[in-house]
């Protein structure tokens, strides 16, 4: 964006029918997405889901195979990265090693011939509390400091849209939590539109106003973090964003505002308003922390789902809560999180227990839970490409 104009506020980002094909596989399949100005938007997904490709498309570092990209209503699809009012905080930070910190931060301003580039760069460094290191070289800084410099180098340009490509990935847990809060407050302070790409669901939920969960080149579900968490629509979202206990079975009865599902002889009731499908085979679920453990069989009561008896097969303590895994014949393993209100675990391994949760905490999915392998595959882009190529080859051979 030549001309030396500062964006006073963030701009909308609009992706219309974006498709990106690499030789051998499709990274993004017909994506439509609108990010309103001034919001903190997170693209969440496992590696290889196309989230980084989406970011690179917006930055102009990749060319879309089809579709349009609009920033602030202006079509930028055919423009070069240096012409877009967009700045990126790279995963590797990519701070120029031959320049001092202040030169790094002033780089973008100098290119746009903005007056008092150094002064503005110092201001940005003060925002990330690193002005005292302005004369150093990037390699003399710690990882966390480099990350903040990378952020300062991007926001000093007041881009209409700031792209964050897993910028906290290289930091240790404590620093990451701290930077999450800082990033959030900086975003509120400068009022820019942030598009944040991450595979860390906790990071996405703490920071973003809106989270889009991506899987296999598509957005599975989009919404506020609480909504996504409380009411996942697909099995992928239910499992990627936190954990879920999922049960599949036919709908056997419908009352005014709820459906009841028969899972291996057990009856699970889910409110109609929280279920995507109301007939046929459906998958319903509940979050582990909504579940309550009982050591004696409770009386069945309306408004509560009760499963059991089962046996506790694993207890693992994690500080604020304890995770119990309860095996119930016919239903498999059920995960229960219980707050550690007292001292020591509620029940030990091998104890006979019942599990219950309130009907209004359950949800019904629109797809069925896949028969999940024990470890979810965490494959990279290249191996996905290879897999798809093989699948295509075998398809061609069959034809």
């Amino acid at each position: 964006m030549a001309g030396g104009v500062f964006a006073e506020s963030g701009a909308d980002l609009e992706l219309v029918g974006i498709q990106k094909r690499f030789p051998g596989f499709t990274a993004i399949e017909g994506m439509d997405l609108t990010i309103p100005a001034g919001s903190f938007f997170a693209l969440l997904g496992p590696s290889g889901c196309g989230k980084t490709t989406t970011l690179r498309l917006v930055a102009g570092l990749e060319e879309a195979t089809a579709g349009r990209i609009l920033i602030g209503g202006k079509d930028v699809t055919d423009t070069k990265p240096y012409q877009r009012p967009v700045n990126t905080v790279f995963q590797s930070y990519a701070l120029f090693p031959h320049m001092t910190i202040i030169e790094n931060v002033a780089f973008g301003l100098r290119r746009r011939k903005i007056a008092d580039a150094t002064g503005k760069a110092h201001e940005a460094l003060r925002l990330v509390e690193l002005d005292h290191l302005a004369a150093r070289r990037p390699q003399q800084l710690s990882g966390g400091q480099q990350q903040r410099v990378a952020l300062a180098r991007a926001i000093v340009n007041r881009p209409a849209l700031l792209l964050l490509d897993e910028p906290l990935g290289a930091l240790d847990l404590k620093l990451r939590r701290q930077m999450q809060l800082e990033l959030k407050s900086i975003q509120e302070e400068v009022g820019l539109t942030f598009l944040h790409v991450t595979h860390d669901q906790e990071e996405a939920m703490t920071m973003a106003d809106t989270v889009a969960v991506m899987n296999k080149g598509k957005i599975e579900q989009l919404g506020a973090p609480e909504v996504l968490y409380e009411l996942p629509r697909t099995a992928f979202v239910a499992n990627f964003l936190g954990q879920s206990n999922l049960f599949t079975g036919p709908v056997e009865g419908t009352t005014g505002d709820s459906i009841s599902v028969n899972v291996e002889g057990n009856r699970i009731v889910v409110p109609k308003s929280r279920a995507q499908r109301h007939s046929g085979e459906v998958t319903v679920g509940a979050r582990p922390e909504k579940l309550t453990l009982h050591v004696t069989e409770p009386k069945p009561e309306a408004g509560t789902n009760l499963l059991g008896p089962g046996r506790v097969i694993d207890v693992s303590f994690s500080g604020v809560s304890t995770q119990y895994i309860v095996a119930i014949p016919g239903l498999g393993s059920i995960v229960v999180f219980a707050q550690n209100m007292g001292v020591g675990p509620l029940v030990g391994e091998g104890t006979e227990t019942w599990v219950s949760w309130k009907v209004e905490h359950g949800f019904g999915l629109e797809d069925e839970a896949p028969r999940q392998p024990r470890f979810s595959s965490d494959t990279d882009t290249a191996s996905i490409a290879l897999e798809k190529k093989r699948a295509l080859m075998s398809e061609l051979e069959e034809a």
Partner: protein
Amino acid sequence: MAFSAFASAAPAQEPAPKRRSKIALLLLAPGVLYLVIFFLVPLFTLVTTALQAPTASGDIGQYVPGFEIGNYATVLAQYSPQILRSFGYSLVATVFALLFSYPLAYFIAVKVRHRPLLQNLLLVLVIAPFFISFLLRTMAWKSMLSDESFLVSALKGLSLMAPDAHITGTPFSVIFGLTYNFIPFMTLPLYAVLERLDTRYLEAGSDLYARPFTTFRTITLPLSAPGIISGVLLTFIPAAGDYVNASRQFLGGTGTTMIGNVIDSNFFDLQNYPAAAALSIILMSAILVLVIVYILLSVYVWKTGTEGLL
């Protein structure tokens, strides 16, 4: 890879061992001995030869030890055009070698980075000329550029060259030969630094509003500065002392004599050993001064470290 000998960033210095190991000294001994016998002793002989005086009888090729500082003044007065020409030619050849080598090295190191087979093939092609003797290759150029060559007769036939003009024996052919012969010495160090150029910096530059040329000027060029500096030194120093390209038997003529040729003829033809020695010392010191100035200037301009440059 062998080319990492030119690598710029030396690995982080490890703390020196507290106790000097005897084995380390033992391992150093052959190298030190070699340098003393084949560098320090000849250098001393050279310095003394440069100060020798002619014998009283004035026989050709007969000299006695002396302290003739005047030898320097004599050769400087007599051969300053050749000295200046040497540095001029090698400077121009170095500039051309850099202009040809940079895109070549960039292409091999960055553009075909994801095709290792092609990359290795291209590298072999860069080194391939070394499989044939330097003299033979220069000779081949002489016949290709000679008056009887196809090229010259074609140019004359098309009236692009005057009928009495030549290519060989001109400054053009000498600089051409120097450039050609030293291109690999420029390309390899450039390749070594560009091969490790992180293209994410270029993406970051582009993301920060830098046009391709600005990205090159502000990021690629400074990051490859160590390679440019070592390539320039590896080309300029030997080119300044070269006496093959400029010799009349090869691409040169009477008007293209460089200091190497002067030293050569003083030593072998005129048997004026003090003059040849004085000229050698002048050449050596001049190169040393130029190189020091050049390195200081480069370090200042590119703010790059000196580690691994030499």
